[in-house]
């Protein structure tokens, strides 16, 4: 792994996990730079993007970064007006009824979702209902609600909708479909991979015939959002949305290994029920942000391993149950795969904040308002060159350390000027 992982922010591996403000400003600058030339970074410096997701996306830019990583930004641009159109439809009463019953049951202690009929719950309804109209054959599945709620904590309803669409269709296809076959298959994959990670844990689960769906359904369907402490949820999601489902597998494997990985540990929990109880009460030390992220990064379970095991389990499934009832699209392993499958145009990646605050500090305009942008696009096309993207010399992505001093000054200016033009801050 690149040494730069630790440059400037070793603290991110340790406890408390408070990122010093200076480091945070630098990271914000780096992320703004990446978001401004997203296509270049994803095609040429993808490893850097990955590393930065592993370090944690700065909170102020997390929503926007997730929108870009998942390809939801492109989807939204390609389907302008679609969300509004779905939002204006009443929805199938069958789904509306179930969704309404769930609105007050998502993160009930989060201030955004605490109030009945409050704006958080209203937006949650809009996003989930829109999804049932977008995919009427899929409808609504309860685990989608916490996922949508996490998204709404970071972005407006329309963006949350498109990220949800991407998660359901690209990252975790079939997870929420009738029959829940995809989640059962992934349970078997997790169990098979565990043998390589911890023989002791694997043997223990086998001995007590503890079926994966009894402990991993909530973990995977909610992408650990209801399992881990909040800071760890966000770090896991940063990596999950960048690298895909293998991150969920790794979290699951780390937890199983830590909780059931030694003879001593399994001796103290004899029985199926006792094991389930143990896995419900994961020791907080194993879920701590710094520890967990490090373990996830170091665990050698690749996309290839998962795909290979997927094929093996699929064969077994067909032998036991026949063909899958629900044909899901193939799973995309992360941001790069999604972008490669459907290369976006620069137009679709352009940032379009809805609120622009003119600032004397903002000497250079790297974002343009919607209406002005239209004019700008024209001239851009005529001139045959892009003027809206910032130059690359601000940050040299391959060599960040020597430029650190310089970066701090540049970075904070960059951060400040951009922050004032940011929709989500």
């Amino acid at each position, binding site marked *: 792994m690149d040494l730069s992982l630790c440059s400037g922010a070793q603290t991110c591996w340790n406890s408390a996990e408070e990122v010093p403000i200076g480091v945070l400003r630098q990271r914000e600058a780096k992320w703004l730079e990446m978001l401004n030339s997203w296509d270049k970074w994803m095609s040429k410096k993808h490893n850097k993007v990955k590393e930065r997701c592993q370090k944690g996306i700065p909170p102020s830019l997390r929503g926007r970064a997730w929108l870009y990583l998942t390809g939801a930004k492109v989807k939204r641009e390609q389907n302008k007006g679609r969300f509004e159109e779905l939002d204006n439809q009443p929805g199938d009463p069958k789904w509306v009824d179930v969704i309404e019953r769930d609105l007050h049951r998502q993160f009930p202690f989060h201030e955004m979702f605490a109030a009945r009929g409050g704006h958080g719950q209203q937006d949650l309804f809009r996003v989930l209902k829109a999804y049932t109209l977008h995919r009427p054959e899929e409808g609504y599945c309860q685990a989608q609600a916490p996922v949508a709620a996490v998204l709404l904590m970071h972005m407006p309803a329309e963006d949350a909708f498109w990220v949800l669409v991407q998660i359901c269709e690209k990252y975790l296809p079939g997870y929420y479909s009738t029959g829940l076959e995809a989640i059962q298959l992934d349970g078997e994959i997790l169990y098979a991979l565990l043998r390589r990670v911890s023989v002791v844990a694997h043997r223990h689960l086998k001995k007590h015939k503890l079926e994966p769906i009894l*402990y991993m359904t909530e973990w995977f369907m909610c992408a650990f959002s209801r399992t881990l402490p909040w800071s760890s949820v966000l770090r896991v999601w940063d990596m999950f949305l960048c690298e895909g489902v293998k991150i969920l597998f790794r979290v699951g494997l780390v937890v199983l290994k830590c909780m059931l990985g030694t003879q001593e540990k399994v001796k103290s929990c004899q029985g199926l029920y006792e094991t389930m109880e143990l896995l419900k009460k994961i020791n907080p030390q194993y879920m701590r942000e710094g520890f967990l992220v490090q373990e996830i990064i170091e665990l050698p379970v690749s996309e290839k391993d998962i795909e290979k095991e997927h094929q093996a389990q699929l064969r077994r499934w067909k032998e036991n149950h026949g063909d899958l009832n629900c044909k899901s699209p193939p799973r995309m392993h992360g941001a790069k795969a999604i972008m490669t499958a459907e290369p976006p145009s620069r137009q679709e990646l352009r940032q379009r904040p809805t609120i622009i605050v003119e600032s004397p500090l903002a000497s250079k305009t790297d974002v343009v308002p919607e209406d002005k942008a239209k004019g700008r696009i024209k001239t851009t096309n005529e001139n045959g060159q892009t003027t809206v993207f910032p130059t690359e010399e601000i940050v040299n992505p391959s060599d960040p350390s020597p430029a650190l001093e310089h970066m701090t000054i540049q970075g904070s200016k960059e951060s400040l000027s951009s922050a004032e033009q940011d929709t989500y801050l």
Partner: protein
Amino acid sequence: MGSDDSYNFVFKVVLIGESGVGKSNLLSRFTKNEFMHDSRTTIGVEFSTRTVQLDHLTIKAQIWDTAGLERYRAITSAYYRGAVGALLVYDISKHLTYESAERWLKELYDHADPHIVVMLVGNKKDLETLRTVPTEEAKDFADKKGLMFIETSALDSTNVEAAFNEVLTAIHKKVASKEVTRGSISAVTLSGSLGLTRESQEEQKGCCKS
């Protein structure tokens, strides 16, 4: 909860019924004496135990709770395995949740032990003014199907203890009767797969005593 207590029997009881009828609150009221208006939706499986004294016996009740949404029924066979009792819950203020009882019953008998003790539970009895399921109607249905019947309120605790205790007593009666101990998977699995080791000897004694 009380995993180190000694006990004579472990009974696995499952909660089933539509989403939002109050299964999770029945569980938390019985095992922790807690009620939450905005409890999280259940995704996957939740469970809790409580050890109760019935006559001179100590019974450890493992209560399992799962998601009520239709979609999750695809993954419930593991959930029913080894269950010796079930509370089929509906909401007395939502007739639809009562109408689906028949479907749940079929689902239960498809997956669980045929000797399983089943109780039909009309929950949210505190919402008397909004009642849409008359007590008599539900009681007749339960009689017809050979189910026990009770109305509860997890909110104000009405009949929650009674519901679980009656089911546990009925299970014990079945287990103690010869007819069930022979030939019934559930009675055998009680000490087998429900995970007794250190306590299994006490369990044996308990069995002989009863």
